[in-house]
């Protein structure tokens, strides 16, 4: 399936890179919005590159998860939402979160487990959210966000609010019972929800053929009585188009759509994964022939008539924002140990320290940094 995805993706590119006919929604985007899409993709990529540096400096606590080569799918789909809509990202949806208003400094602090990070050091990497801006923090257990987001969408329906939910799952996560129960519930209730399956060819090391016998993930739609469509996830405009269509349908009361976005995970599951299981040449082929940023740049400078200087200006802005965010993040401190006891419940607002910790402000004075221990270690490993 990975190979198949590769072929498919490649096919879209051959001869058509940057030239696929524009759908009506994509065609309606003004020049600002066209450039904005580039900004988000570039920001996603560069921010992850910065995280790689920080990770190598052991400033990232836990694993680092990349979306290299999948930026279009994340950005293009989230770009189809309106203010008030809510999405639930997955580990490769940094781009979606940025579009929805997450800031680079939040991401960096979060990865560095800082005390003023969005989860105050409680949760990993990009596992955080903000209902106001419109994204809900995922948990690790794959599939669980589907029923949860179905419930968010149900609240929109019950309150007759014209808002839409977008939930992302990976090809692997479609195998979970939670995915099934959630999407079926949403379909029956006809809530305003879009489900995106990001088919990036792998779930950790598992190729799609070992995940499902279905020919395509879009085929699963029929079993839930909802439309199922496939699009080229490495074409940011195609991604935007298909999502916008589904979002509009949902907003109009048309219920749930299942969208499969074809892409490819060019890095390992996390930085520690050496991708030994990937057939030789596959990654290189995708990088050379089907990089979503390259493809969009070609289109921007060709079809849409932007100049290299236009793009360079965006690049410079991105770089400057990331530098500023890094400085800010590095300055923030580690969480105060006693904060660990705050806010499990609304009432009581905090747990009492255990008797052997009364009056103790932190458990150990110098936090031992666990040394390496193979694939999982604090400095060089970690898992979503």
């Amino acid at each position, binding site marked *: 399936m990975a190979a198949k995805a590769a072929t498919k993706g490649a096919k879209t590119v051959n001869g058509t890179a940057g030239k696929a006919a524009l759908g009506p929604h994509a065609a309606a985007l003004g020049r600002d919005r066209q450039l904005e899409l580039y900004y988000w993709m570039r920001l996603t990529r560069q921010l992850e590159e910065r995280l790689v540096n920080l990770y190598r400096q052991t400033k990232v606590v836990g694993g680092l998860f990349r979306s290299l080569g999948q930026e279009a799918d994340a950005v293009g789909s989230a770009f189809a939402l309106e203010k008030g809509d809510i999405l639930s990202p997955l580990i490769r949806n940094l781009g979606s979160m940025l579009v929805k208003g997450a800031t680079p400094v939040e991401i960096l602090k979060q990865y560095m487990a800082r005390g003023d990070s969005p989860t105050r050091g409680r*949760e990993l990497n990009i596992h955080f959210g903000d*209902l106001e801006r419109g994204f809900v923090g995922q948990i690790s257990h794959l599939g669980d966000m589907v029923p949860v987001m179905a419930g968010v969408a149900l609240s929109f329906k019950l309150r007759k609010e014209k808002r839409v939910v977008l939930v992302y799952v990976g090809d692997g996560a479609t195998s979970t019972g*939670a995915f099934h*129960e959630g999407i079926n519930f949403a379909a029956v209730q006809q809530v305003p929800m879009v489900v995106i399956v990001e088919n990036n060819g792998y779930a950790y090391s598992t190729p799609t053929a070992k995940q499902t016998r279905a020919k395509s993930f879009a085929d699963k739609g029929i079993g839930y009585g909802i439309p199922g469509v496939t699009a080229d996830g490495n074409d940011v405009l195609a991604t935007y188009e298909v999502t916008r269509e589904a979002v509009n349908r949902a907003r109009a009361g048309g219920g749930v759509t299942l969208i499969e976005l074809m892409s490819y995970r060019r890095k390992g599951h996390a930085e520690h994964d050496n991708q030994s299981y990937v057939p030789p040449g596959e990654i290189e082929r995708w990088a050379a022939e089907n990089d979503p940023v390259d493809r969009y740049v070609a289109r921007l400078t060709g079809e849409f008539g932007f100049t290299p200087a236009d793009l360079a200006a965006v690049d410079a802005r991105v770089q400057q924002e990331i530098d500023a965010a890094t400085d800010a993040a590095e300055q923030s401190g580690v969480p105060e140990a006693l904060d660990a006891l705050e806010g499990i419940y609304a*009432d009581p607002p905090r747990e009492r320290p255990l008797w052997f910790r009364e009056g103790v402000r932190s458990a150990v004075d110098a936090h031992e940094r666990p040394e390496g221990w193979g694939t999982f270690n604090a400095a060089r490993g970690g898992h979503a």
Partner: protein
Amino acid sequence: MAEITYLEAIREALSEEMERDPNVFLMGEDIGAYGGAFKVTEGLLAKFGEARVIDTPISEAGFVGAAAGAAHMGMRPVCELQFIDFISCAYDILTNYVATARYRAFLGCPMVVRGPSGGYVRGGPFHSQNPEAAFIHTPGLKVVYPATAEDAKGLMKAAIRDEDCVLFFEHKYLYRRIKGVMPAGDHVVPIGKARVAREGTDVSIITYAATVYKALEAAEQLAAQGVSVEVIDLRTLAPLDEEAIVATVKKTHKVLVLHEDTRTGGIAGEITARINEACFEWLDAPVLRVTAADVPLPYAPSLEDYVLPQVADVVLACRRLAAY
């Protein structure tokens, strides 16, 4: 005022809360037209309509998860599990998503998950469970398990108003056997407070739900034998009312923990540990447990009766404590 059953008390609470707060709505299997397997929600569809009384597919993880999402948005969902035994299918969602939402993501889950629980009804291994232990173990969840009709109503109202997820276990043996007169007005029983079901001086029985009545019956028999038994009905299992537990230990110095759940890993262990920590010096005897045997609950009457705690067991255990 007329007496109503434990079951009707729950229905009354649901109905009153739905009237009071438009955010309250119900989800579950067959709760609409059919009124639920035990008819707890009977009449509520007619009263509140399809948007607020939602029949779901057979998807416990699906609709409990959906409840969490709706709760984040300020709704107040109440989920019925057709039997509490099926809460196992929502275990992941409840313990990983719901219980942690406030802590890791600052998202509230004001929701209730309720369902008919417990044995003594020849329901067999999958229609008689008492799954409280698995959830008491999970920080972030609250657990209540009322024994009286008054508490069933008052705790349900408190559960619906709570800002966090409350698992509300209803004992199906009590549904139509137990009755009470509801206090007038907005009757809310606070979560986290135990109740002295009977005062006594020689031995304390700490228990909850159906076995409260086994304890009371035993206490009656023991009174005739000159042993004065205090019965504590915990009502809330998480958070535990440690104050009430300590108070009764300091009064009688001898404790029996009684529960219908299986023995190993049941809540009696936790209570025993707390007593050890908080008031060991006041103990004049070991904390003893009367519980179900460690087997899946069998179906035939002779087997079920053997496995579950009976009045005679409680009497025996109290006599042993009294004589200690």
